[in-house]
């Protein structure tokens, strides 16, 4: 989130799309209803009428996967009706920047398209630079290659008619919703957008989220209270795990993974340290070398020296074309290219799409080590229904894992607040936390390498590795400390002293910090700021519920990101009644500003979007693999054959696999005419591996169901409560029909399209509850993130003669 939970209450319009906030992020919804109490309009756009819709002012049924059409229509509405916040757009976005002559967009494809490589040559989308490598601008917007003009042109096609026929939302409803949201494009009104997996899990998920960025910038809703782009994150600690890089493509603190083309730290830094393209740009990523050196220092300790290139050479390096995300991993396993592995905190046989393939892929492992609370579809894959355990070669080790209540540490909430949690109960004997498990295991490996040697032992034997896991010690390491006595600008720092903030990190090995983002959260021994529970705040802070002294958030306790855009160039808040920061008597008050520089109009002022090269926010963003402007494409499996307003049906660059089990239904496949979307459930947590073992929860939600409209049920001769078979080209799943007015047939391109929805929390290890819904879903992914398209695929539904999975 650019904001935090409490800030939602400051919104005048709340748009919840790609999320069922009331059921899955109930705390966020508490603040939604507070906003509503204060007069805000709450809009829910979702394929299913849920408890969120029940409490919203407006709900619209949207066809799964048409979010860009919906959002593009809103952008078009704002631009064509001149509803945008002009002063803001002028001052803080790249609206006036000139895009190079090579950029073009034709009928669904951007320029630079290479059909053989299935990729774009992104250099064709570059900005036009002057002789000093600064971006050229036309503040009068007269030049047709100004970003704002290209934007307007791009979304011209997203008129009400086209959007309605694509999304299934009638034009009249669209107009009402657009009218409400566009009303926030003035100084003293703000709109917030709340989304979750309903947005990310598409073959164009990143671009959906980009639409919200563009829209919020046009309306001046970034950096202000009650605005922002807000990904709702919850108990699985997605926020913390992304910050700390539980993903293959980044290192901690969003530093890119090194490539094989960058053999030295200097090469890496050169490739990843941008140059400012505007004189007023702070260009924060210019600090990358300091963050990298400090991270390597934290990892390799004394072995990380300038001579050893700080141990950069010991890091594994991927080829630029490699993808190690989980769909690719299981594809490799399916092809027999993996021998063994560890599976912790994940139940892939249940939760990875096209799970029939995953289950077969797991059979190809020689050995697997798994950590779980209960037996799961993954731990027990070798004895799954229809498989002879004797024929499965995998040697499985199941390590009992501590429950999250049985361990202590920090968790990062959706608002980036780092919060410490204590151990609530002692874990049973023999049970290990993930931390203990990893530290002990690695110590054993280090010992063996030290004793026996081996190929490339350095990355292992040189690790600065603790004897025992201790969350507090690790938290200190994340924050960082000086590795020797140093004097900086007359100030002395002792070796081992904790570092006050990431501005103090250095690239010479004098500082260690495992994650620069978290630098500043633990600066005094024994007194981590994230343990603070102090509710003190100034009157201005109280007006927006900022609570700066409660816990700590990254970066540097800044609660609302990009807050320098929440003030005019002279430092006066756009909306004084809900100010985030303000320049008063020569200093900033309110939140921690995005940099202490004076306001933009003053000598030494900086542009507010400090993480971009120009310091301006990017309405036009040439960095993504699938285009500088979001364009609506159909899901890979779509019920229509023709893109409603271009010639390119689905994303030209989505990720896919070519194995015999990766079958795709063709567009408007007669055998699979119905759209399936999948979602979480309140009573069961994620894949259900934990909650299905709680008898009272299983009593309340005992079996897999498929929610469908009365119209579809009638068409198919299905009655409420009937057993049905749901089938995609990849798999077949038994479910109980839940016939409901909450699902609705949609009219798309003049045709009726039916949508059904299923939860994914039921698996065969809980007897008679049904089995993985993901046997139906499709193994294709977003080109930027490889996140699978869980939210839309094609199926058929028929009444079952006999049920076995639900027996």
């Amino acid at each position, binding site marked *: 989130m650019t904001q935090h939970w409490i800030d939602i209450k400051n919104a005048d319009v709340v748009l919840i799309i790609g999320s069922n906030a*009331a059921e899955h992020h*109930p*705390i966020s*919804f*508490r603040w*939604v*209803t*507070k906003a509503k*109490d204060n007069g805000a309009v709450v809009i829910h756009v979702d394929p299913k009428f849920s408890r969120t819709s029940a*409490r919203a002012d407006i709900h619209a049924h949207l066809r799964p996967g048409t979010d860009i059409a919906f959002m593009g229509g809103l952008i078009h509405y704002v631009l064509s009706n001149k509803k945008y916040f002009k002063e803001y757009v002028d001052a803080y976005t790249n609206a006036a920047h000139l895009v190079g002559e090579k950029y073009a967009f034709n009928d669904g494809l951007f320029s630079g398209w290479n059909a053989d490589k299935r990729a774009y040559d992104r250099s064709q989308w570059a900005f036009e630079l002057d002789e000093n490598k600064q971006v050229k601008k036309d503040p009068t917007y007269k030049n047709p290659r100004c970003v704002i003009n290209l934007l307007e042109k791009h979304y011209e096609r997203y008129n009400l008619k086209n959007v309605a026929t694509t999304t299934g939302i009638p034009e009249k409803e669209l107009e009402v919703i657009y009218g409400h949201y566009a009303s926030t494009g003035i100084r003293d009104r703000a709109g917030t957008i709340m989304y979750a997996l309903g947005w990310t899990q598409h073959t164009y998920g990143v671009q959906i989220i980009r639409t919200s960025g563009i829209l919020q910038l046009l309306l001046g809703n970034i950096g202000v209270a009650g605005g922002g782009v807000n990904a709702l994150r919850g108990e699985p600690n997605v926020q913390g795990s992304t910050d700390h890089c539980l993903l293959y493509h980044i290192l901690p603190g969003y530093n890119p993974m090194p490539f094989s083309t960058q053999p030295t730290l200097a090469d890496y830094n050169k490739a990843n340290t941008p140059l400012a393209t505007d004189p007023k740009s702070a260009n924060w990523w210019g600090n990358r070398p300091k963050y990298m050196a400090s991270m390597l220092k934290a990892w390799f300790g004394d072995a990380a020296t300038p001579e050893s290139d700080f141990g950069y050479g010991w890091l594994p390096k991927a080829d630029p074309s490699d993808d190690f995300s989980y769909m690719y991993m299981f594809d490799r396993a399916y092809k027999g290219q993996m021998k063994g592995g560890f599976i912790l905190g994940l139940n892939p046989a249940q939760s990875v799409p096209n799970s029939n393939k995953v289950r077969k892929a797991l059979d190809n492992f020689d050995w697997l080590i798994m950590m779980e609370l209960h037996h799961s579809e993954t731990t027990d894959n070798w004895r799954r229904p229809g498989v002879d355990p004797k024929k499965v070669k995998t040697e499985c080790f199941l390590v009992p894992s501590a429950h999250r209540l049985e361990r*202590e540490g920090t968790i990062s909430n959706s608002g980036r607040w780092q919060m410490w949690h*204590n151990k609530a109960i002692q874990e049973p004997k023999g049970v290990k936390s993930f931390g203990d498990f990893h530290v002990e295991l690695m110590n054993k490996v280090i010992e063996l390498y030290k004793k026996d040697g081996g190929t490339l032992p350095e990355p292992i034997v040189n690790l600065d590795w603790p004897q025992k896991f201790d969350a507090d010690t690790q938290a200190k390491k994340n924050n960082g400390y000086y590795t020797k006595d140093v004097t900086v600008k007359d100030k002395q720092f002792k070796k081992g002293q904790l570092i006050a903030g990431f501005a103090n990190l250095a690239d010479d090995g004098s500082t260690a910090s495992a994650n620069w983002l978290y630098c500043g959260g633990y600066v005094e021994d024994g007194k981590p700021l994230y*343990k603070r*529970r*102090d*509710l*003190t705040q100034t009157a201005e802070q109280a007006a927006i519920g900022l609570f700066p002294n409660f816990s700590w958030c990254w970066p540097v306790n800044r609660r609302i990101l990009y807050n320098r855009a929440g003030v005019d160039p002279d430092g006066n808040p756009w909306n004084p009644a809900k100010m985030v920061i303000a320049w008063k008597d020569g200093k900033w008050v309110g939140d921690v500003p995005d940099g202490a520089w004076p306001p933009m109009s003053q000598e030494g002022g900086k542009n507010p979007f400090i993480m971009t090269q120009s310091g301006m926010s990017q309405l036009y963003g040439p960095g993504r693999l699938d285009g500088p402007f979001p364009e609506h494409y159909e899901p890979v499996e779509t019920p229509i054959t023709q893109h409603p307003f271009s010639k390119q049906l689905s994303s030209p660059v989505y990720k896919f696999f070519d194995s015999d089990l990766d079958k795709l239904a063709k567009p408007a496949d007669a055998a699979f005419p119905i759209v399936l979307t999948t979602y979480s459930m309140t009573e069961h947590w994620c894949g259900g591996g934990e909650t299905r073992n709680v008898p009272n929860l299983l009593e309340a939600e005992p079996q897999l169901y498929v929610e469908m409209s009365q119209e579809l049920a009638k068409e198919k001769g299905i009655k409420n409560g009937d057993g049905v078979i749901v089938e995609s080209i990849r798999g077949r799943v038994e479910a109980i029909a839940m016939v409901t007015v909450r699902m609705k047939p949609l009219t798309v391109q003049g045709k009726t399209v039916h949508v059904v929805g299923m939860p994914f929390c039921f698996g065969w290890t809980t007897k008679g509850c049904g089995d993985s819904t993901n046997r139906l879903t499709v193994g294709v992914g977003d080109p930027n993130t490889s996140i699978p398209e869980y939210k839309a695929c094609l199926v058929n539904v028929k009444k079952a003669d006999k049920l076995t999975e639900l027996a």
Partner: protein
Amino acid sequence: MLEPANRTPTTPDTVRTVFARLRERKPDLREITDAFEETSVTQARLAEELPLVDLGEWSPPASERRCEGVSLLADDLPAGLPATLITVADTLLPVLGRSFGTIEGELRAFGLALAEGRLDGAALIRAVLDRNRLGLAGLAEAAGLSPGVVAFAAPMVLAPALARLASDLAPLLCGASWGKGTCPVCGGLPAVSYLGKRDEDGNEFLVGGGGRKFLVCSQCASQWHLPRVTCPVCECTESGKLGYFRVEGCDHERIDYCEACKSYLPGIDLRAALDPAPAAIAGIELVHLDLLAQERGYRPAAELPWNRLD
């Protein structure tokens, strides 16, 4: 300042109700109930009926000092407080005498000494507020009184006067940042704690978890907020050192204890409590827990007339 957690008013009626149900629910505590009922009812009545305390020249300590943990009465006392004390003594000491017949005469002597000025009211109040036992004993002896009786009775006489004063001074308390284990008004130690109700903020969706911890002053019955994982006595915040226990089946009554200083504080969870007793006497319903805590070797945060079980 946050709204107090327990809003059951302390009136003679609400106090009577508590004693009535105490007799019914915890018949074993009869001795204590009999001994304190009339006194508590009278205290409640006095706190209601007492006239405004004359503040005279009094002014609160500077706000920076208060932020650092200096209570309102730490420096000076309102000019009229000793007079109020005498008013209370006139009414309360005879009642106390009837409940504690063995010391009736000494209580009367105490009242007389106060009324005649042989015992300086202001000095007495200061000694109680400063928890200056020796000073208090000295004052008693100088006036020819039994130090034990004065130590027992003085806080009880002072309580209604302080309660009256505390409600007058409440507007001076502002900000949620007191953060101390002692009372922001009089500096007293807590008698009991509350875990607050769910936030009643009119929101129609989630009412909020509640559970915010409030302490009740053993001297003036003020309520203030203290973060939950903080020992009110030694201000230790280490999670491993702080714990609590309950009697099985009773969700709403607990003992919070601290291993660092070996102190404990009885508490009431208002999220589970049906009909909370008024703050000033809530502790008396938890005496069975005092017993358990003291058996386990913990000392009460504040000594109260009914928790001296040894």
